[in-house]
């Protein structure tokens, strides 16, 4: 885009996409903002009054707020930890030449194609059901009392389900990153006397740093908004009520759109703090 003419042509061509994207974001965001300053109860009289910041104050002072933030952070952190660590190990494993590599790779990626709702239901009914689930059969086979997963270990269950869904994504990104590692570097390290473990630690892992930050960034954005897995399993009970789920409950179950919208704005702020923080890390990693 060197000339003036091509620059303005480019601007013209980009305009529809930019306008569409802006509208897509700005309209809902503005509406949420407007609702958040109203007392708006659709089934109980609709719009009642402008209330200023009352919804915001009520949302954070409610006893459900801090536990919800905590639950969100635990789920995001837990899933990130599991997917990144297992993802690296799986990627290293899948990078080795082996028989049936193509099929194994497709199988590893498969969970990513299952819809969240479906995977939540599959885990709930086929694996974690206290009577007929595979896991309870396994427990009974070894003579143990089956765990009632979704109520006794509710947080761990949700983390397990979501991790299962996101592991393929992490593995895929990390695998492509590993494959881009120059084999001469590994050979040079081998000549330099590095053991397999120190080759991994000093060569492979630093090479993956960039891919790992990208996995963390993308996953965090999506994990802050997980909903379906909770909706079809615990319904937010047993301490699994995340911020997203709390907002849903305020808007749809309590029919308090104003209060829910205020929560929505908090969620937007939280997500942006995360994004800003992560972008700075990624930026640092992309610099070199």
């Amino acid at each position, binding site marked *: 885009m060197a000339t003036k003419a091509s620059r303005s042509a480019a601007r013209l061509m980009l305009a529809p996409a930019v306008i569409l994207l802006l509208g897509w974001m700005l309209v809902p965001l503005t509406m949420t903002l407007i609702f958040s300053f109203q007392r708006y109860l659709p089934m109980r009289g609709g719009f009642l009054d402008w209330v200023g910041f009352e919804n915001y104050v009520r949302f954070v002072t409610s006893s459900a707020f801090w536990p919800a933030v905590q639950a969100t952070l635990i789920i995001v952190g837990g899933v990130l930890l599991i997917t990144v660590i297992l993802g690296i190990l799986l990627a290293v494993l899948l990078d080795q030449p082996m028989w049936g590599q193509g099929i194994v790779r497709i199988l590893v990626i498969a969970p990513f194609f299952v819809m969240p709702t479906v995977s939540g239901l599959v885990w709930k009914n086929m694996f974690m059901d206290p009577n007929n689930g595979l896991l309870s059969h396994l427990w009974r086979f070894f003579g143990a009392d089956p765990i009632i997963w979704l109520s006794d270990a509710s947080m761990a269950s949700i983390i397990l389900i979501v991790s299962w869904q996101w592991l393929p994504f992490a593995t895929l990104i990390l695998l492509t990153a590993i494959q881009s590692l*120059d084999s*001469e*570097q590994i*050979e*040079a*390290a*081998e*000549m*330099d*006397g*590095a*053991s397999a473990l*120190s080759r991994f630690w*000093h*060569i492979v892992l*630093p*090479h993956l*740093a960039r891919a790992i930050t990208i996995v963390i960034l993308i996953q965090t954005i999506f994990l802050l908004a997980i909903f379906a897995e909770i909706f079809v399993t615990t319904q937010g009970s047993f301490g699994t009520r995340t911020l997203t789920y709390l907002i849903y409950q305020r808007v749809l179950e309590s029919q308090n759109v104003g209060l829910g919208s205020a929560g929505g704005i908090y969620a937007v702020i939280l997500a942006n703090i995360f994004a800003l923080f992560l972008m700075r890390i990624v930026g640092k990693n992309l610099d*070199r």
Partner: protein
Amino acid sequence: MGRIVLDKVTKSFGDVTVIPPLDLTIEDGEFTVFVGPSGCGKSTLLRLIAGLEDVSSGAILIDGQDATSIPPAKRGLAMVFQSYALYPHMTVRKNIAFPLRMAGMDKAEQNRRVEQAADVLNLTAYLDRRPGQLSGGQRQRVAIGRAIVREPSAFLFDEPLSNLDAALRVGMRLEISEMHNRLQTTMIYVTHDQVEAMTMADKIVVLHAGHIEQVGSPLDLYRAPKNLFVAGFIGSPKMNLIEGDEARKHDAHTIGIRPEHLSVSSSEGTWSGVVGVAEHLGSDTFFHVHDTGLAETITVRVDGEISFKHGDRIYLTPRNDVMHRFDKAGDRLP
């Protein structure tokens, strides 16, 4: 010490034999160059010596000790790769210190050796940079630095200059030769460039399809190539190879005459032809002569002051004392 002996070494990948049984001895302190066209197995041979590939059969002895099943790091060899294989996330200092760190050497000694290597290689000013901030020649020197700090019994170079531009290549060639003279360590150097081989080597090993065609000093190979392959490969521009009646006059199937062993005249000579392209190098001029009835083109190397124009008829006279004769199988006749 670094005497390397290959004893009936073979290498095959599945059904494909890359190296048929091969014997070779590299004496301590020798600068040996493996040279050959691409795909001749020279890099594979180097990787076998390094231990990065396992031999299919045969044995590799380093200083009399069977090293065939010793892992690469324990062989006491250091390698410089074609891509340099520097660790991009480490500074130059850490790159050079890496083998020492892996050996568990103490910090002070590590630093001393790194500083010393950096001093020798003019890298002192760059110790805290990352490889990405260095030029090609500097990266090359870091790779060499990483090799010399280990004080190996032999250096292995895998086409180390092929990523550099022509001017730098000449400079690095000198630096590596200089380093060999100073360290007196065994060096094995792989290249496809016969100029590098001729200028650097104590001993050249010419490889072709995994076979050793000839082993000898650069001048041995130049003066007495054992067969047609070596004759055509060593020397630049290439030796003129002539078959047919002219060769029969000398009781040979093929005769070879180097471009610099032909004298040129505008009036008389043994052979005659028409001047095609002339390449003026200043000091020398190469004429590509056509329509001689001997071969498609005959290349002649003459003094830079002699000039003929495209299309001129010239006469060529070979020096019979330096003519090479080959039999039907391509082997040298005495």
